[in-house]
């Protein structure tokens, strides 16, 4: 996997546009920074932990990394299909204060099944550093999007960006599955 593909994979899997639509906002239409940062850091931590534990995890599950790429591809294809059909996330009930970083930002917006599977797949194949780097890059993009007020960034643009990222995820997922099949 090239660095560019890895970065695209995480931007698409986190679907920064779709996630931005679901992030709790302040009155100015901007994302609540602390909540977004907290959720993003938590998601990054989970991705890093899964990437670091991918080897032992796959050994326990008795799955070769090559075969797991096929599974990650399947998860990605299903997630991409969901995004293409439902590009806007469901409005989730918001807890007060910092808890919104846990729910809904970290889960279910950021840590979807496709991200969890991708973290294991790329952790075992590309290494922890590359995986965390790509995930962190995608989360920085999300954070930047969070700074922008929604007015110059209308919903319609984000919804279409969400669909485009869904399509990118579909391509990455298919590539991942085919690569897992063709690998030794």
């Amino acid at each position, binding site marked *: 996997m090239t660095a560019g593909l890895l970065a695209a994979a995480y931007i698409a899997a986190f679907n920064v546009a779709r996630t931005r639509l679901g992030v709790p906002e302040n009155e100015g239409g901007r994302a609540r920074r602390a909540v977004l940062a907290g959720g993003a850091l938590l998601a990054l931590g989970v991705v890093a932990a899964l990437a670091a534990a991918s080897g032992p995890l796959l050994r326990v*599950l*008795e*799955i*070769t990394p*090559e*075969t*797991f790429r*096929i*599974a990650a591809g*399947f*998860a990605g294809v*299903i997630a991409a299909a969901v995004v293409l059909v439902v590009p806007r996330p469901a409005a*989730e*009930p918001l*807890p007060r204060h910092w808890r919104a970083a846990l*729910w809904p930002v970290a*889960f*279910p917006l950021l840590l979807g*099944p496709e991200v969890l*599977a991708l973290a294991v797949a790329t952790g075992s194949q590309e290494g922890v550093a590359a995986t965390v780097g790509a995930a962190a890059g995608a989360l920085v993009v999300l954070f930047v999007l969070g700074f922008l007020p929604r007015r110059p960034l209308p919903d319609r643009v984000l919804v279409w960006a969400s669909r485009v990222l869904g399509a990118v995820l579909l391509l990455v997922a298919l590539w991942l599955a085919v690569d897992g*099949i*063709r*690998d*030794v």
Partner: protein
Amino acid sequence: MARRLLLHLTLLGLGFAGLRLAVVPAEVCPVVSAVQVSHAADEAAAWIVRNMRDDGRYLYGYDRDVDETSAQYNGTRHAGVTMSLYQYAVAAGRPEVVADADRGLAFMLERLTVGPGWQAWQPPGEGIQLGANALFVAALVMRRDATGDPAYDDVMRAAGRFLLAQQQPDGRMYALWDEATGEAVPVSGKFATGEAAWALALLEGEFPGEGWGRAALPTLDYLALHRDRDEGNLTRMPDHWAAYSLAEVGPAGLDGVRRAYARQLAGYFGIRLRFEAQRRGTGINLWLRWVPGTPAGVGTAGEGMAALWRLARAEPSLADLLPNVEERLACFAGMMVSRQATAAEAAGYPRPGLVQGAWFYRGYVQMDDVQHVLSGLLAARPMLEQREVAG
């Protein structure tokens, strides 16, 4: 909120359970030692020899559930089994098996026909075929390796010339010779082309400088570039004979096309063996993965992988394949040792001698099942020994 959280967690859990069951069941690879693999090979060779007929033919097939032997026969498979017995004699250091393999060889030598500039054997009731003669040549090469006896050198060359008579300018091989017209029949054999490429490459090893290896290369390139399209295959064929050929021509015979082909083949055998390791044949796994595959099918994947292991060890540009190739090969050996019919298991059947040492697919074993697994195990053993030495 709790309800929504529960909903998301339930969907996540169901999704991962579905993936686990349907896409990535556990790949179970029993760990076996080189000694266990040697024992399994001994048992397999003993099954072949024990069930040979007086005329030099082998037992073609046996259904242990209804205690019925097959009345069919196939010349190409006869040649392949004979070749595997000689392979066994060489690899396992069992020269006493040569006498038994020679009985199988005699069955072919007695049926040699002469064509324009070549000789070929013709199985009873069958035509003069490329595959049967390619494996005949391979058997003779293995015999020469086992015995050092040059008695059949002229026959090897004559049969090699038959293979060349079937070869087309683009490397394609015609699978049949028509005695009536005196021409090769423009049809392809599923595995015959790869078998012929291997036989030509083997002849180069026995008779270097006579041009046999040079003749093998266009056919290897045909396999790599054109065969699947010409034969209308939907996917590339995982041809273990092509892998044998690549290993035989070695690094000196590799170019970009053949190197890429070796990588592709490693991928085909890899997914075949990974998928096989997921098969339990019981419970829900039976519905999702069906029963463990035919021993011949798994055996050919093991043979192909072992051939590519030898090639990757010799060719630095393929060395990155070695860790995975070795894992899959070890998995193949573990699966097939554990699936072999033991003496205790055989004792439960009416004719234990037809069961012990064989591999069955849904109660039936065919001679090529035992041949391919035997060849695969023989080729996997050096890798296991090397790993054991390395700790």
